């Protein structure tokens, strides 16, 4: 009898396990069924959509919650957020497993990849008032004449300097002059021993806009690396000449995680960084007195990088209308104003830029000016490989083991070998 009981128990247990899974899927199918037939706005009350995003700082979380709260009050649609810690890996796994959220953040950088996989739903230009958006930002999600995501905010790079050591008027007007002139050398002499004049990054995400000056391109035939091109080499020469001479260093060289920490800890006097660093500096290093200006011109052109993230709809969502309604609100005048004011980010719409008076902020103004002429950090679907090889070989240039041309040629070859094999 005892034996029989124990068998019964284990069998029951294992069935319980299975039943758990089963019950779950049943729940899903019920909601799916009840939601497929909807049309008018009235029907949307009580609907639920899932919005996938990655976590930012506390201010961003609070601002997002505020947008969601206002949106739910207005439309009656409930929003559940799903936060990614490793966005690309998790989101891709969810897409494959068909459990991806209805609305999701799409990074402009990864947009071409997701668009080419056909996982995003095209969005109507008029419906989302795309004419109100900055050109580079709306075009970041453009493919074959269709828009696949709506930019929610953006960041651009600008030059930050520590007022304790640097006078704004002394900073040269061109990057060539800044890197190769005497300014940094003189500044270095003036600085305490453990402070360097300027930090830089060995990353195409930061270097692309000057690498591509004067019609140069780091990509040829749409997918292949073109880093070894003589024009690209020439454009990158001033930066790496300066780095080789030790005038500028990477944050890692001086034992800092990134520019923001190096600058905040007063280990560097100048950096080129995005506006996300503003909150970091104000929160963690309130004593550092700094100024922000536009990046100096390069070969006579103004330039900077811009990074934007948009809201996109998962093509297999059952909640098309509710999802559109959400994006409509979040990227509309009201939602974007709440979001950008709360999170301290820059609004992608020109009308919101005006209405929130964000441009009056002297620290943000140089970033906003960049929105018009900036290069979007996005280049097809092979940029990962190209940038990886760039990062892989550039250190040897700085250490003097390779010439810049040699290193870029080598990185081009390696990248193209990988791209061809794929």
């Amino acid at each position: 009898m005892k034996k029989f009981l124990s068998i019964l128990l284990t069998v029951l247990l294992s069935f319980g396990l299975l039943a758990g899974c089963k019950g779950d899927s049943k729940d899903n199918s019920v909601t799916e069924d009840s939601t497929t037939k909807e049309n008018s706005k009235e029907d949307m009350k009580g609907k639920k959509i899932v919005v996938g995003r990655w976590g930012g700082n506390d201010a961003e979380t609070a601002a997002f919650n505020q947008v969601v709260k206002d949106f739910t009050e207005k439309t009656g649609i409930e929003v559940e957020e799903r936060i990614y810690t490793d966005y690309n890996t998790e989101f891709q796994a969810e897409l494959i497993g068909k459990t991806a959220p209805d609305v999701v953040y799409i990074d402009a950088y990864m947009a071409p990849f997701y668009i080419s996989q056909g996982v995003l739903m095209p969005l109507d230009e008029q419906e989302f008032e795309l004419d109100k958006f900055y050109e580079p930002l709306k075009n970041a999600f453009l493919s074959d004449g269709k828009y696949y995501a709506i930019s929610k905010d953006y960041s651009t790079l600008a030059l930050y300097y520590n007022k304790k050591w640097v006078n704004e008027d002394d900073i040269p007007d061109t990057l060539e002059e800044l890197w190769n002139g005497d300014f940094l050398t003189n500044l270095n002499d003036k600085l305490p021993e453990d402070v360097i004049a300027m930090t830089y990054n060995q990353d195409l995400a930061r270097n692309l806009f000057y690498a591509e000056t004067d019609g140069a391109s780091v990509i040829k035939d749409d997918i292949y690396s073109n880093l070894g091109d003589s024009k690209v080499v020439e454009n990158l020469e001033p930066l790496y000449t300066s780095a080789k001479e030790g005038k500028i260093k990477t944050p890692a060289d001086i034992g800092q995680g990134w520019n923001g920490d190096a600058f905040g800890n007063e280990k560097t006097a100048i950096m080129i960084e995005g506006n996300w660093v503003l909150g970091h500096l104000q929160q963690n290093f309130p004593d550092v007195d700094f100024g922000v200006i536009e990046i100096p011109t390069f070969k006579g052109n103004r330039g900077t990088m811009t990074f934007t993230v948009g809201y996109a709809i998962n093509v297999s969502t059952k909640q098309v209308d509710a999802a559109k309604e959400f994006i409509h609100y979040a990227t509309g005048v009201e939602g974007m104003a709440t979001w950008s004011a709360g999170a301290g980010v820059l609004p992608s719409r020109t009308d919101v830029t005006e209405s929130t008076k964000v441009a009056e902020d002297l620290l943000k103004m140089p970033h906003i000016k960049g929105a018009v002429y900036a290069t979007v950090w996005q280049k097809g679907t092979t940029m990962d490989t190209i940038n990886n090889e760039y990062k892989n070989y550039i250190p040897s240039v700085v250490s003097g083991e390779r010439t810049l041309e040699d290193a870029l040629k080598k990185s081009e070859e390696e990248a193209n070998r990988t791209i061809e094999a794929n």
Partner: protein
Amino acid sequence: MKNKRKKHEAIQGIAFLSPAIIVIGIFIMSSIIFALYISFHKVNLFTGYYEFIGLDNYKRIFTDTKTRIAFINILSFVVVVVPIQTIIALIMAAVLNTNIRGKIGFRTIYFLPTLTSSAALTMIFMFLFSLDGPVNKLAVNMNLLSESINFLNNPKFALKVIMSMNIWSTVPFYMTIYLAGLQEVPKSIYEASSVDGANGFQKFIHVTVPQLKPITTFVLLMGIIGTFQMFDQAYIFSGGSGGPENSTLTVALLIYRNAFGQNNTMGFATAMSIMLSIVVFIVSFIAQKLNKSDSLY
């Protein structure tokens, strides 16, 4: 009667095992089988595209220069790290097993690195070895170096920094395992060797080491498996690129890069993972044979 009972017992056994078998079957076995399946295909999991390409993914492993570099890197990593960490762990355990003062305090302190996350450790080591960091400063001040070395950006040093970090952080874990093993070594053997006139060092070589052989096998296997799969340190160290000059490119990092991000070459990535497990299996087998744990006297 007896037969019936046996049958009964078998059913009962299977019933008890079934929850575990079901879970393992779904989450482990089926994924392994699926991985094997897609390693013979060119796949796009987003669109559900599968094209059978036979052994092409496996052939690519042998022709691809990146893959070759990754395998060489990880093999050199294993060859250096595993023996060193095993030997240091054994010696430290033997020392901490004697009656030195404050041994509990030492054990606690030595165990701390294992509790710290490897991501945080990597950041700390990158700070220590940075151009203006403490290691460089110390070496320059002691006149060991004429000028600072850029450990992080120099292909000759990058992997060695990761090796030293790995040894430093894993030794305490294996030391703890050895310490537990030392409790099982019969005191009588030590007493007998004392009578024979053995000194401390001789006891260590002729009693402790052979007695701990089964533990050593375990430590070696765990070490080999752990080091072959090294990913996080290299990823953080190089910002995902495996640089400088491919010096920190590990197999796991290359698999990750092919599976996720913009590459979407899942088939090749799975083929590489299967290749990696075969290599791990072979190396573990050799290590076990070399250690010959069954030759205990």
